């Protein structure tokens, strides 16, 4: 998208054109220079690699119960991060749990993004009655507090990871729909949309060739800002027992398990807590960095 910071002609700013821009001004260069964003990216890459490689890493069985080695502190010879109340290795459980947390967050984001983009594009492009109907429905969805709505949905669907994922996706549709709609409106104000209409292109062609490609940057920003929330929300649902069901565990259910021993073995709750904070922080700082690099106009946005 365009850049506002340089005081060039108004046309240039709106154009979304990268004309005459020095290499150091290109979005990628600006992202790379952003240390927080790079730190976030590094954390995400490491966590993702660990999660993907979990089956081949030399880890203890995450579900192997060993009652003689309960609540061992971090730094123990066989358990670097200690063990939980059933003697299960916390490092191993964290890494296996990362698979669950990440998978649910990514899938939920994908579902919410697809449906939200569809609604946002239809509402923004066609406007009028379609816009009004969709946006009022979204307003209704927004009227509920996020977490409460997710809890209500899972209660209705029944507990479990799949249902938690569906609930989180539904809750986040409004976020994508509203932001995609406004991105569509800003692309629609460009003359190349009129030019495509004047050249005889159909609505479908314009949406596919002109609108969607020019929204990739803001959509990337939306997703990276949103996935952190998804991770938190998944953990939250698991924490209250509506997400991952035993023996599967994610970071939220580990948090829930550990809280009963917070006084005797604080590491059992701190380790998954730190992991959640770190990952969410990583996604958010990458998202902020992407947003600043790609579209400075979104700086005040988000939720």
């Amino acid at each position, binding site marked *: 998208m365009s850049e506002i910071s340089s005081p060039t002609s108004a046309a240039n700013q709106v154009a979304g054109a990268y004309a005459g821009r020095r290499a150091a001004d290109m979005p990628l260069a600006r992202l790379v220079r952003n240390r927080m964003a790079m730190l976030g990216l590094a954390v995400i890459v490491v966590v993702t690699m660990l999660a993907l490689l979990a089956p081949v890493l030399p880890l203890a069985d995450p579900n192997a119960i060993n009652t003689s080695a309960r609540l061992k502190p971090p730094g123990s010879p066989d358990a670097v991060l200690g063990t939980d109340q059933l003697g299960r290795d916390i490092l191993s459980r964290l890494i296996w749990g990362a698979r669950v947390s990440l998978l649910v967050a990514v899938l939920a984001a994908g579902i919410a993004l697809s449906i939200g983009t569809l609604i946002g594009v239809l509402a923004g492009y066609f406007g009028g009655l379609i816009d009004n109907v969709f946006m009022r429905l979204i307003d209704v969805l927004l009227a509920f507090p996020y977490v409460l709505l997710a809890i209500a949905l899972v209660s209705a669907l029944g507990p479990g990871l799949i249902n938690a994922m569906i609930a989180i996706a539904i809750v986040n549709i409004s976020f994508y729909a509203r932001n995609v709609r406004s991105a569509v409106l800003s692309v629609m104000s460009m003359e*190349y949309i009129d*030019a495509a209409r*004047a050249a005889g292109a159909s609505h479908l062609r314009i949406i596919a060739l002109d609108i969607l490609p020019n929204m990739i940057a803001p959509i990337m920003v939306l997703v990276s800002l949103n996935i952190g929330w998804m991770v938190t929300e998944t953990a939250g649902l698991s924490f209250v027992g509506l997400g991952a069901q035993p023996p599967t565990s994610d970071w939220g259910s580990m948090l829930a398990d550990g809280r009963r021993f917070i006084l005797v073995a604080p590491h059992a709750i701190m380790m998954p807590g730190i992991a959640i904070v770190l990952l969410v922080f990583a996604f958010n700082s990458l998202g902020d960095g992407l947003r600043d690099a790609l579209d400075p106009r979104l700086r005040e946005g988000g939720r």
Partner: protein
Amino acid sequence: MPPEPILRVRGLKTQFQSAAGVVRAVDGVDLDIYPGEIVGIVGESGSGKSALAYSILRLTSGRIVAGEVQFRGQNVLELREAEMEKLRGDRIAMIFQDPMTSLNPLMRIGTQIGEALRYHLRLGRRAAAAKAAALLQAVHLPDAERRVHDYPHQLSGGQRQRVVIAMGMSCTPDLLIADEPTTALDVTIQSQILNLISETRQRTSTAVLLITHDLGVVAQLCDRVAVMYAGQVVEQGRTADVFADPQHPYTIGLLRSTPHGRRRGEPLRPIPGQPPRPGEIAAGCPFAPRCHLAEARCQHQAPDLIHIGGGRQARCLLRTEVAYEPAP
């Protein structure tokens, strides 16, 4: 026997709904364009020039409430949307003011030009790419063969406007609507682009509807000119006639306020006041509040567009009508 006009606009009215009420952007415009001629439309910002252009292509965001737009004898306002899409870009094309925003920044220029060729002429990808390169050569883009792979940001403003013109001309339309095609360019590039439009017209005998607020451009390029004020055509005629002997006080004012229209040594005289705000037009002649010739009757009697001889028309109560004569 004069040829049939390629475009015949009659009583066209386009309105916008705004918070302040109904805005009559185009308010009963009649306009004929004959094959191969360049017709200029001049007027201040907000006079309805662009709204007229968008209405002809049925791309206006306002509502066309009355009138006819006959293109090659067919009223385009009655066409279905799919038929309209076939017409746009193929028989009537349009080019835009700002070459910085009228090209999709994420599509290679060759692909962008080829798009229209592919759906109007049903060309294959390869044939469309070859035709795109030829079109770019025709608009004198240097190194056209290689530039088809460029993205818009790799081109200068003037080069982009050449690409836009190549796109507009890709299917050799019967009518090219150019909405202030040189406004966003600097002066030296402006004249190059105008020459290109004129040259293209001669090569393809495409008629051009040129929208501009620059009387110099009209003098240089247009066979005929229509002056618009507050959504209406207030004067129409051959460019040379209108410039030599303007009949409407607004045209006189426009010419006096530009270096082209005044005699040597005569000071530039701006037209006093502002154009009426859309939706604020009262009864009477819309130009009366700013007119140096206005009489009492101008305040409450709206003038009609009358024929004043020589194929010319003016919308002023102070002119007397002459017997109807067919347009030249």
